[in-house]
């Protein structure tokens, strides 16, 4: 009598054992996918995959799959195309300035309608306001800050010493900046062996220009993204200063300086000061063979830099269960400790004040004070230029800036043309 019963029980247990994981998976595990770009050096994909694995260990009911999708533009292209074809990701890390495009195309959901609890609201308010601003459209918050940056100035202390300047003092304003650049420019006959300063003009021309424009007291676009002020007198002043660094002070290479080779020029000692993203901090720290400093950008009417970089965006295709899982993952990955670690690993600016109060961050800043410069500059930071039809409206500015920098147009004429083009493109949204 014993034997058959045992057998039956064993069989049942076996069957239940076989069936259980499938049931558990169907009931409780939410699978989410997100696309992310890599825009700076370093093992970014490994770090992001590590975060996903750590999160899943702590949250076995959520399965997170990060998918590396190329550059920012590639990631946007892939996310939008896949979403329009009906099998897009639930989230994607995309340029903060592309929020208008995503909202206008009705592709993403605002976070504030999802994060409604008191704790959720507190989380959404815990970021630096300067980083949130690009994602705030029509009274909603559409982006959660993640890989964010600003522009800072890197300077070569040896070059400063060589030119008889105090190696530990960065220029505080435009006049000093031009004078220092002039002094650190080194010539041998007709040849310039070291330039004073380089402000790169390819790729993100408008971004670097926006820093100058903010300092001169201009705002490039209104808060609704429906109007640009490209030919504001302060903008003309800003562009004239950029050109004067070459034409008047002979301290900046003529023509357009490449974004990608500028850090290399700096590391090779071919230039004393460069304006570049904080995202390059780790690269320069690892490869500079000379002492260097990191400073806030010099002031004219005021200090200032635009913010930059990418936010998390939540796509419409996500089911309610997936939306909840996304929110949990975002709260986890942007927690103070994780934000601090991400900043230390990559050079991106930690996105919330309390991340800078963590022990790990305090120890890092104590050993490498330059890391805190970007944080301190956030006080003066302004949201990056972003409007409806963003890529096209900023491209109009890029083209005209490059025309002025290469000497084909006078600054005022170039900015007038950019203004006309921007206004024409924004006409459908200006109503």
């Amino acid at each position, binding site marked *: 009598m014993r034997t058959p019963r045992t057998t039956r029980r064993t069989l049942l247990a076996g069957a239940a054992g076989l069936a259980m994981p499938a049931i558990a998976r169907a009931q409780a595990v939410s699978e989410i996918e997100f696309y992310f770009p890599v825009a700076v050096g370093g093992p970014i994909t490994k770090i992001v995959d590590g975060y996903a694995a750590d999160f899943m260990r702590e949250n076995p009911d959520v399965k997170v799959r990060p998918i590396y999708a190329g550059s920012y*533009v590639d990631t946007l*292209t892939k996310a*939008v195309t896949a979403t329009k074809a009906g099998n897009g990701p639930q989230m994607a890390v995309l340029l903060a300035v592309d929020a208008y*495009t995503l909202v*206008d*195309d*009705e*592709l993403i959901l605002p976070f504030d309608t999802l994060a409604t609890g008191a704790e959720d609201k507190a989380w959404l308010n815990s970021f630096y306001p300067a980083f949130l601003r690009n994602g705030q459209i029509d009274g909603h918050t559409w982006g959660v800050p993640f890989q964010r940056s600003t522009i800072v100035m890197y300077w070569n202390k040896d070059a400063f010493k060589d030119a008889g300047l105090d190696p530990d003092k960065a220029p505080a304003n435009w006049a000093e900046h031009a004078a220092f650049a002039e002094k650190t420019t080194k010539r041998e006959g*007709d*040849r*310039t062996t070291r330039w004073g300063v380089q402000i790169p*003009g*390819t*790729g993100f*021309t408008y971004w670097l220009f926006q820093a100058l424009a903010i300092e001169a007291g201009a705002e490039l676009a209104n808060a609704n993204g429906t109007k640009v002020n490209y030919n504001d007198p302060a903008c003309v002043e800003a562009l004239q200063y950029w050109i004067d660094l070459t034409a008047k002070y002979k301290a900046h*290479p*003529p*023509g*357009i*300086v*490449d974004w*990608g*080779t500028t850090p*290399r*020029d700096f590391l*090779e000692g*071919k230039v004393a000061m460069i304006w570049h993203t904080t995202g390059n901090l780790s690269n320069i720290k690892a490869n500079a063979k000379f002492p260097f400093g990191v400073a806030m950008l010099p002031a004219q009417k005021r200090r200032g830099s635009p913010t930059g970089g990418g936010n998390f965006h939540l796509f419409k295709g996500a089911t309610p269960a997936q939306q909840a899982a996304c929110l949990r993952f975002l709260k986890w990955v942007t927690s103070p400790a994780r934000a601090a670690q991400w900043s230390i690993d990559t050079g991106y600016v930690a996105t919330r004040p309390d991340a800078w109060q963590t022990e790990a961050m305090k120890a890092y800043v104590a050993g490498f004070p330059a890391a805190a410069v970007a944080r301190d500059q956030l006080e003066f930071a302004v949201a990056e230029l972003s409007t409806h*039809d963003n*890529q*096209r409206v900023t*491209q109009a500015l*890029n*083209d*005209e800036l*490059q*025309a002025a*920098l*290469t000497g*084909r147009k006078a600054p005022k004429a170039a900015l007038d043309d950019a203004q006309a083009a921007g206004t024409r493109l924004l006409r459908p949204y200006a109503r």
Partner: protein
Amino acid sequence: MAGVRRETLQAWALILPALVLLVAFTHWPAVATLVDSLYTTPKGSRPPRFVGVENYVALMDDPVFWRALHNNAVYALVTIPASVVLALLMALAVNTALPGRPLLRMAYFTPTMLPMIAVANIWLFFFTPDYGLFDRIVGVFGMGRHNWLGDAATALPAMMAVAVWKEAGFFMIFYLAALQAMPPDLKEAASLEGSSRWNFFRRVTLPLLMPTTLFVLVNAVINAFRLVDHVVVMTRGGPDNATTLLLYYIYETGFRFWDTAMAATLTVVLLALLGTLAIFQFGVLGRRVHYR
């Protein structure tokens, strides 16, 4: 009668696989593009609206389109003859008995085998001011710094140099194959008659190479409009659209500005342009190339 029908059916069945692929991936997209170019770009919940030729009219007013067209014309007019002549010279060089000939052939062919994106990154550093390869070379002759890619006057020529370097080796292979297929008795007969080498080349070799030249020209024309990878890596169309080529502008319009209707319009213009050129090449040149 029944036999003929069976034969027709069989013929259709035989070409069906190729026809399905051709229609699905070539003809249908072309027609769909033409249709899309007559509508507005759908935005969010706003569906596309029929606007007729409005997109084409708008294109006529777009200064960047004219700039891209002009750039592409210059690009084609320089890179096509340059790469074809260079290819012919290289093929003639490696066709003669020369020590280290296989090595030389391989060296000429290497640019074709390398992926364009990798090549563009290498050339990016060749063109770097001050310490790039070209500035070091001209520096030896006492010339100063050149911002090759950052100057509107030199950026497009720099792009063309990369294209010629990339293309010439590829076309050389076709010329080399044609030269090797040439019967050696022609050469013997010519030398018996005391014909000079230049005369032989002009009167015999070159006419016999004409079919190859037509083939190479057709490919070169297509490539002049198709090869834009290095623009993406090296200049992104800058400075101030000095290196914006037609296909690059289509990509920007379609996948950066998300104006799919305008991108379709541009594509139709490019298709029409290439179609016209192909008809001209096969119709007019095609009749004259064969040695009779």
